[in-house]
């Protein structure tokens, strides 16, 4: 896999949806196409599972975040009060 090991070591909970999904994608194609050692494969599988469940959690918990431009800043936009 072309990913650097430093990036691989980043805790899964800190990954964005896209980061997690793209790593998951790489793991799946590595498992599908490359000959890995068994131990390595199991490790990949376990990380893949963790990534998938992280993605699932992010999807289910996703809430639209709305901000408003105010001068040079972004401030929270409260739909109810506007």
């Amino acid at each position, binding site marked *: 896999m072309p990913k650097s090991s430093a990036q691989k070591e980043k805790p899964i909970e800190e990954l964005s949806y896209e980061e997690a999904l793209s790593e*998951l994608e790489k793991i*799946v194609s590595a*498992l599908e196409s490359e000959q890995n050692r068994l131990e390595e494969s199991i490790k990949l599988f376990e990380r*893949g*599972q963790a990534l998938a469940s992280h993605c699932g959690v*992010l999807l289910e918990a996703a809430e639209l975040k709305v901000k408003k*431009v105010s001068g040079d800043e972004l401030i929270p936009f409260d739909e109810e009060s*506007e």
Partner: protein
Amino acid sequence: MQPTLFHTQQWTVSRLTFYLRKLLEEDEILQDVWVQGEISNLSRPASGHVYFTLKDQSAALKCVMWKTSAARLNLPLQNGMAVEVHGKIGIYEVSGQYQLYADQIRSVGEGALYQEFLRLRSMLEAEGLFAPERKRPIPVFPHTIGIVTSATGAALRDMLNTLRRRMPLVRVILAPSPVQGAEAPPALVNAIEVLNLQFPDVILLARGGGSIEDLWAFNDERVVRAVAASRVPIICGVGHETDFTLSDFAADLRAPTPTAAAELATQITIIDLRAELQSYQSRLSASTLNLLAEKRALLSSLVSQLRYVSPDRRIQSERQRVDELARRAHSSLVHHFQLQSSHVKGLQKRLEALNPLAVLARGYAVVTRKDDSSVVSHVHQAEQGKQIQVRVSDGQFDAEIVNHQS
């Protein structure tokens, strides 16, 4: 001139009316006409058709608008309203009334606006602002979506609800701006520029429906140029499906409504993401199970190969060989013994034949001297008075030599 009683051409009312109708309907000008006036005697019976009279200071024109055209009106008609009506002149034969069959109505001023619209459009088009090759693709999976619209309008609510429903992972940055009135164009330009500094992946420029005057800010040259100059792709969703503004032409993508703009900005929805994730999960499991099955198969094939080359088999065959040799050794030994034993028997027989005691049975005796146990086989050994021992077939006795003859 006196009318003659028997004129060659006799007209009936119907024929005359029909003739007049034909005259009017064949006139190209009368069949495609914009008439300006003030609405009066407005009536909308249950049939859905609209009847009114268009008048100015000195004349009046009866007008009819059929239900299908009336349904497309986006201008609420009122008595006293100054309008421009498009349609064709015809005759209602039943009452001999000529009238305007209207198909479009716009407010006065709209015509002038429309002329301005056409002028701006051809100017900006000539500049290449609307060229298809300027259009940039809309990202299918935007992280951040910028919105330029009124903070209080239904358009914003519709768009946020649509985004929330389709793609709640998205981050929205709103640059609120008035969307109508004189202050709208510079505010819209500013909002677009300010949003560009936030680098969203796409900008939605939107406004709910309204009259052409209400939507006019989106035809303002400054706004259209700002749309074309935006470094971030813009989806323009202004008014309703039938409303086209110059901002629509300058945008990278035109949406018929604000809601549609939000939909076009979220081509990948959370449902797609769930399905994608699901598919990765099953591929992950499948590939790992496959791998395990492969490894297991390889292992079991190695085990059977190992079993084939195992020394167990050699040992078994060696053991068999040893058994075989042992069996052969045993049988040759037995044979040897048999041979030996019959040989011994022969020897025994021969020995028996040579047994001197056997002779004794026939009446011979063995005589030995008592003093030195030597066998007496000659007379000179038998001196008178010597003690001798005589052995016969079943025992022995002692004797003494009394006389001997040579």
